């Protein structure tokens, strides 16, 4: 399969990248890891006339903590997220997801920014970003802005980014003590997109009451989903069996999966229920100072 031809640019600076994007507007596409864009071009589901390759721009690949945020550069490869000792220890939900996105070959190329900006409701990182209440930093010819994860995913393959904007960073407020998270993904075979995926992030106070509750769902409808009623139902409560079950019921009710080759909608909804229960329990077991 041969993609349609295009004009290729590999700018060295973000400034050059955004001015090219501004010049060519809807006719241009950003190339990051290419692991979603190139397959789409081969199928001719995307035919950009201009490609702006970000890979020559220095300084967009990093995972670090600063100013009370975990900051992940947009060009960070999923493999590098998976390999980060700090991520594994302090952000288990991010480690879980990184280890389950696609396969090792795709993860060697695929980027954090691309996984988020693609706006695919079957991509795994967006649900984690929603559970963590992440923020995204985007740069355009008029400057920089910060977009909340919750306001970023507008429709299938449609995000809040304008054609001339580049996502440069995803950032997550460093969680307080007694926090834990988990991502669980049900897949038909290794390396496939999720039948259902659930991200959880909890902070528990000294009395064992949930102070903060974050949940995100993958493959649960036209966009990655943040089931707010489910989150609210657990906030301020002790996460006992009945509270967890109620939260999972609400999350499953909120999910709006479609019947397809990966299973009927009813089955998937049930899986959201089961995975939410398990992901909440995993998150609790990882709360430092917890059992």
């Amino acid at each position, binding site marked *: *399969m*041969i*993609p*349609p*031809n*295009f*004009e*290729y*640019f*590999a700018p060295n600076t973000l400034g050059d990248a955004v001015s090219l994007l501004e010049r060519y507007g809807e006719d241009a596409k950003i*190339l990051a890891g*290419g*692991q979603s864009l*190139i*397959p789409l*071009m*081969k199928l001719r589901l995307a035919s950009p006339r201009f*490609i702006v*390759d970000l*890979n020559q721009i220095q300084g967009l690949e990093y995972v670090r903590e600063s100013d009370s945020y975990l900051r992940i550069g947009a060009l960070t490869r999923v*493999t590098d997220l998976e390999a980060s000792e700090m991520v594994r220890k302090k952000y288990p939900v991010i480690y879980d997801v990184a280890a389950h996105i*696609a*396969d*090792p*070959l*795709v993860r*060697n*190329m695929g980027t954090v920014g691309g996984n988020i900006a693609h706006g695919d409701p079957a991509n795994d990182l967006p649900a984690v970003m929603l559970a963590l209440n992440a923020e995204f930093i985007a740069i355009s010819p008029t400057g920089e802005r910060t977009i909340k994860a919750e306001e970023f995913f507008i429709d299938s393959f449609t995000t809040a980014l304008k054609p001339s904007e580049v996502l440069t960073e995803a950032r997550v407020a460093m969680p307080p003590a007694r926090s834990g998270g988990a991502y669980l993904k049900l897949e038909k075979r*290794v*390396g496939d997109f999720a039948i259902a995926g659930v991200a959880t992030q909890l902070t528990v106070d000294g009395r064992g009451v949930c102070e903060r509750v974050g949940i995100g769902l993958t493959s649960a409808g036209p966009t990655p989903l943040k089931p707010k009623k489910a989150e609210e139902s657990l906030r301020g409560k002790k996460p006992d069996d009945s509270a967890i079950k109620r939260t999972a019921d609400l999350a499953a009710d909120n999910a709006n999966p479609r019947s397809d080759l990966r299973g009927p909608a009813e089955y998937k909804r049930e899986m959201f229920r089961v995975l939410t229960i398990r992901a909440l329990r995993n998150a609790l077991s990882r709360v430092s100072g917890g059992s």
Partner: protein
Amino acid sequence: MSMTKMHIRVNVNGVEREGDVQARLLLVHFIREVLGLTGTHIGCDTSNCGACTVVLGGKAVKSCTLFAVQANGKKLLTVEGLAKEGKLHPIQEGFWEKHGLQCGFCTPGMIMAAYHLLQKNPNPTEEEIRRGISGNLCRCTGYVKIVESVQYAAEKMRVQEAQVAAR
């Protein structure tokens, strides 16, 4: 720098190669058709099977899911670059000794994925080997012999390392 046609230079298996390519040319087509290195296979052409795996800039990637222009200025290793002076690379030897192939179609990709895995982790567990090759599909072997082949190679490479270090 912009063009629908571009001049690229790639270090392929230690040799500088160059050519004029259309921007849309996939890396796998550059390797097979422009360079004439047909060890790298096209299995699915839809980014799923890993038969086209090569090591670019030190990392195993699917060459059907990359443009040749993205390899400009980089080091590319294909299965043809592994044997040295007529002697098989330990990973190739492992597939030979342990019967890691039947039809052989997936083999070059498996070997390149295993190569990257062993660079990162010279002493992998069986679980780590299985995870490391999980982007490479084999329709014949059931993977058991492939895992044994990689274990054989890991062992042999560790012994060679130790011999070099002892010198």
